[in-house]
């Protein structure tokens, strides 16, 4: 993975010093809260219901063992012994004190981490495929360009005060695990007919109150011209994006208001003026960054790996876990492991400091010392030998993270909701916990098959409910928590916006309602047809009928 050089480290240190000064001035009253708020947000610091919350950036979801251990230390030293992995591949602490923030940031910087641009109206921490570099069907490791984007977007002089937040995601494969069409800019690395590497550029995706899938503004952007093209998009947005209404300030609204053709024309016109002005990265620098993502030296292993195959035969629990949580690796004899942070009845994405340390130990011993965070709020060990999978699974069992549920109905995404978040209208986590408990039986889960439930506690959609096969949106109805169901959303290369099924349900009713939706699916599915395929085949009617009866 990428390692800071002296220049990166200087920037990181100067950021800590800058924020130390800003916190000091705030505590002395030299900065008002209105002035300080955007500054703290750009360091990832929010005020939530009970305390400050810090969102630590995990660029493109990749962490070293040393970083994971430091995150555990920080959870103990500055928080209450745990953290929360989010749908943005980041980690949040819930109990942070403003006066301790400078020291905390210095600790983070000691392992090349920070909270930069994890909030605020700026280019946010870039996200990427959590299987980057280890899957077979990849044009190029998306973390290389993600690191290029991380550096370019860090403290950009022109684009740090945008109309609204701005999220960029990258996939290096046609199979999209980064939900690129749901981002302000989505990049898909492709090869053109001449065999050159470049990008499909999507612009204007976003969730929130008005869910919009991105528009493809360019079918092929040559790789070396990326930064000038990004600047052209950002400049059009910075100048013409709406600033009078926070709900209409995302770039998706500008694209809609101008129309995709006119928006694209303006971007291309701007780009023509700047593409040759030295904004693009020197190719040597791209090569330098790419070197950090050279794959580890894989051993030559012949498949099948007997010990692994035997263990699956002897141990049904292990075999079930392999069937959901272990994914094909590009190197023979290796595997990619999803560590489920969704134990039955647990809080999706939550992880204690001790569990972080245990994951770090596993990665050090079995996975080339690297851990990934996913936007599904799980972790990934990207480089595990098949022969070691049984030991990994057993150790994960000891720390409570061996559930064989990746991609299944209990692999629920949930935002923190009203338990923590000052924006929320309803709780998300208890709904996730109760769904998980209702469907706890593993055979039943495996029978239901692939099904993504995503829960948001308010219309801002941090729980990605618009992209859930089943989406649940919490609302406030006369002071009571109510939950609306959407069906048919997707976040992959077949991205779609979930459609509202009908009137909402009380907290007491919602889990029964979800069970009915699942029941309707089981009634009408064809052999081996996953939930989303059934929904696409039959539409909402059978589900509506099951939930609301015939009128």
């Amino acid at each position, binding site marked *: 993975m990428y390692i800071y050089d002296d220049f990166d480290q200087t920037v990181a240190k100067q950021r800590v010093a800058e924020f130390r000064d800003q916190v000091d001035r*705030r*505590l002395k*009253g030299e900065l008002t*809260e209105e002035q300080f708020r955007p500054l703290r947000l750009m360091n990832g610091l929010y*005020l*939530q*219901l*009970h*305390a*400050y919350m810090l969102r630590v950036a995990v660029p493109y979801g990749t962490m070293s063992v040393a970083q994971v251990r430091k995150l555990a230390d920080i959870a103990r030293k500055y928080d*209450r012994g745990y953290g929360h992995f989010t749908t943005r591949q980041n980690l949040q602490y*819930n*109990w*942070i*004190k*403003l*006066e301790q923030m400078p020291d905390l940031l210095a600790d983070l910087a000691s392992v090349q981490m920070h909270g930069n641009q994890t909030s605020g109206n700026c280019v946010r921490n870039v996200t990427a495929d959590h299987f980057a570099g280890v899957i077979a069907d990849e044009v190029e490791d998306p973390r290389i360009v993600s690191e290029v984007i991380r550096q370019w977007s860090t403290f950009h002089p022109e684009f740090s005060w945008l109309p609204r937040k701005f999220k960029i995601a990258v996939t290096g494969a046609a199979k999209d695990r980064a939900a690129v069409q749901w981002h302000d800019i989505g990049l898909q690395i492709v090869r053109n007919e001449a065999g050159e590497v470049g990008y499909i550029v999507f612009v204007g995706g976003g969730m929130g109150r008005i869910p919009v899938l991105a528009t493809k503004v360019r079918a092929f952007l040559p790789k070396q011209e990326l930064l000038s093209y990004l600047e052209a998009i950002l400049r059009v947005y910075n100048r013409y994006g709406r600033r009078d209404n926070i709900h209409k300030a995302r770039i998706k609204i500008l694209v809609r208001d101008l129309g995709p053709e006119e928006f694209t024309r303006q971007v291309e016109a701007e780009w023509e003026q700047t593409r040759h002005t030295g904004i693009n990265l020197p190719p040597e620098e791209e090569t330098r960054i790419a070197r950090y993502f050279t794959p580890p030296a894989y051993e030559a292993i012949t498949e099948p790996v007997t010990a692994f195959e035997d263990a699956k035969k002897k141990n049904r629990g292990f075999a079930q876990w392999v069937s959901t949580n272990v994914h094909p690796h590009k190197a023979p004899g290796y595997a990619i492991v999803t560590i489920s942070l969704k134990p039955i009845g647990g*809080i999706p994405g939550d992880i204690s400091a001790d569990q972080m340390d245990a994951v770090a130990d596993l990665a050090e011993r079995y996975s080339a010392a690297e851990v990934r965070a996913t936007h599904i709020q799980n972790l990934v060990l990207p480089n595990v030998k098949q022969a070691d999978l049984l030991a990994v699974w057993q150790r994960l069992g000891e720390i409570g993270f061996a559930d064989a549920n990746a991609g299944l109905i209990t692999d629920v995404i949930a935002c923190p909701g*009203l*338990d*923590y978040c*000052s924006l*929320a209208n309803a*709780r998300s*986590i*208890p709904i996730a*916990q109760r769904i998980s408990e209702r469907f706890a039986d593993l055979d039943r889960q495996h029978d239901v098959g692939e099904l993504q439930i995503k829960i948001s506690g308010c219309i801002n959609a941090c729980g990605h409910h618009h992209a859930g096969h089943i989406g649940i949106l919490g609302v406030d109805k006369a*002071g*009571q*928590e109510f939950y609306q169901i959407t069906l048919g959303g997707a976040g992959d290369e077949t991205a779609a916006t979930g459609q509202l099924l009908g009137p909402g349900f009380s907290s007491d009713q919602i889990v029964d309602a979800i069970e009915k939706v699942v029941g309707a699916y089981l009634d009408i599915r064809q052999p081996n047809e996953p939930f989303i395929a059934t929904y696409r085949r039959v539409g909402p009617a059978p589900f509506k009928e099951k939930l609301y009866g015939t009128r």
Partner: protein
Amino acid sequence: MAKPDTGPKVLTGNLLRDGATVYYTGKDWSLYVTDAKVAATPEEAEELRKIGAAAYAANLVIDVNVVDVQSTPDHVPAHIREQIRATGPTVRRDLNKSMSPE
């Protein structure tokens, strides 16, 4: 026409320095909602708002609000959001505080 807003209310915010959720007691700030001074009339609520604005201007508390509480002796907050603020996340009871000092 909206009903006149006459129910009992308390003044709450979060301490600038550490973010803790606190309630105005009539002379200082407490972690516990049961310590809060209750405004029984719109005039008293307006007085709390002024005190809150001054405490905000003095960089003591942020996210300052006057919120409804129930008409009971322990004046539990009326809305679920404020109930959760008063104690802590419902999914981590082990980390909660009670509404009143031990």
